C-alpha cells in the first residue's frame, strides 16, 4: 500500500521513511539536472547562489516539450549518479531530499544519513505517467539551457520508492 507524503518534506516524516516503502508524493519540488547543477555551483562558488534550496526536494529531470493538453511534457527521472559530486554539499547546506533513478555513491549515502535526508527512486522511463502527475510548472532560471533549466513544479500523487533512508539503508545494496 502506498504511503502519501507531502512536500516540503517534514523532518520527522523524512526520518520515518524506510527503504523499500512505496510513496505517492504531492507538493512542490525543484527540477534540474546536469547543466543546472554545474551552473548553480558556479554561482555558489561566486558567493551568490542563483536559487535557495533549503528544505527543498530536487527531482533530477529534463522534460519533453508539453503536448497540447499537458501541463508539462513527459518527465521521468534521469540517472542520479551523474549528480553525485554535487550532492553531499547540498544535503549539508539544507537540501531535504532528492528524487532520481539509480544507485548513489557512498559519499551521498553518508550525507543523507548525517542530515536526516532521503533519496527517492522514481521509475525510469515512465515519462508519460509522471507527466500526468504535474499540475503546475514555473521556470526559475537558466532558460537558455532549454530542457535543463531550473524549474519548480507542483505534483500530485507522484509514485516513487524510498531508495536510501536516513539510517543508510540502500535498496541498491542488498
Amino acid at each position, binding site marked *: 500500500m502506498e504511503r502519501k507524503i507531502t512536500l516540503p518534506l517534514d523532518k520527522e516524516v523524512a526520518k520515518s521513511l524506510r527503504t523499500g516503502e512505496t510513496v505517492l508524493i504531492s507538493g512542490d519540488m525543484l527540477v534540474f539536472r546536469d547543466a543546472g547543477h554545474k551552473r548553480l555551483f558556479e554561482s555558489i562558488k561566486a558567493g551568490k547562489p542563483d536559487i535557495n534550496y533549503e528544505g527543498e526536494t530536487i527531482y533530477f529531470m529534463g522534460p*519533453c516539450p508539453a503536448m497540447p*493538453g499537458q501541463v508539462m*511534457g513527459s518527465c521521468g527521472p534521469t540517472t542520479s549518479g551523474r549528480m553525485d559530486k554535487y550532492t553531499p554539499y547540498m544535503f549539508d547546506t539544507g537540501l531535504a531530499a532528492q528524487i532520481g533513478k539509480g544507485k548513489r555513491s557512498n559519499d551521498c549515502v553518508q550525507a543523507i544519513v548525517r542530515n536526516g535526508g532521503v533519496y527517492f527512486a522514481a521509475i525510469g522511463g515512465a515519462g508519460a505517467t509522471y507527466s500526468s502527475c504535474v499540475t503546475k510548472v514555473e521556470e526559475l532560471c537558466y532558460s537558455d539551457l532549454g530542457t535543463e533549466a531550473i524549474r519548480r513544479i507542483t505534483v500530485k500523487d507522484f509514485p516513487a520508492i524510498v531508495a536510501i533512508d536516513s539510517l543508510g539503508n540502500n535498496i541498491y545494496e542488498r
Partner: protein
Amino acid sequence: MKTADLNLLEQKIAEAIEYIACNMESSCRAALEKAREGEENPTARFALDVMCDNADIAAKNGFPVCQDTGMAVVFLYVGRELILDGDIYKAVNDGVRRGYKMLRKSVLDPVTRVNTGDNTPAVIHTQIVEGEKIRVEIMLKGFGSENMSKVYMLNPAQGLEEAKRLIIDSVAVAGSNPCPPVIVGVGLGGTLEKACELSKHALFRKLGSSNPDPELDNLEKYLLGEINKLGVGAQGFGGNTTALGVFIEKYPTHISSLPVAVNMLCHCSRATSFEI
C-alpha cells in the same frame, strides 16, 4: 533506373520518429507484460506495473513514453539501382528535425555543450544493397542506457569464456542505471568500431525471435539466463527480470583479437523499420 524519392524519405522518417517516441516497440511491450506477470519481488513488481501503465498512457494520449527521446540512430540500406539525385543524409536529418519538433532536444556539441536546437544530427550508418529500394531502420536511443556501453579488445587466449564473463559483468556493473529490464546488444568480432556497430544493430531484433545462427542462439540463451540470476531486477530493485533479451551479431575478426562490444537498451525500446 529509378530516382530515389528523398522528400518521401524525409517525411517517413519524421512520421516514424513521432510514432515510435509515443509507442513502445510492440515485442518489448509484450515482454514487459510477461515480466510483470512473472515477477514475485513486490518492489520490482511495482516498478513493472508503472512501466506497463506508462506505455499505455503514452500510446493512448500520444505522449512520449520517456522524456529522453534520445538521439536518432539510423541504418540506411540503399538499393544500388537507385539514382540519388540529392543529399540522402540531408533528407534524413531534415526528417529528424521535423520528427523531433515536439520532442526533447538532447543533442549538443561535445566540447562547447551548446545544444544544436533540433536534435540533429542523427547517427547514420549506410550500406549499399541489391535492388531499387531504400530500407530504413530507426531507433530513438536514450543515453541512460547508452552510457553503460562497454567495449573490450580481448586476446584470443581469453576467448569466448572471458567474453561471456565480461558481458554478464557489464550488466551487473550497469545495475540500475540503464533502466532495467534491459535489452543487451552484443557485437563480436570485426574491429573496434565494427563491434560497436554490430552491438547497436543487434538491438533492432524483435524480442522473442531466435538468432538464425544456432551457436549464437545458444549463447544468447545462456547469457540471458545468467544475467537474470544477477538479481539487479526492474529499476535495480531486485527480482528476476534484469534483462528481456540478449541479441548477438558477429563479424570475422583478426587472428590477434576478439573485439566484444556491449550496448544496452532500456526497457522502452523505440524502434521501427520501413522501406520506400
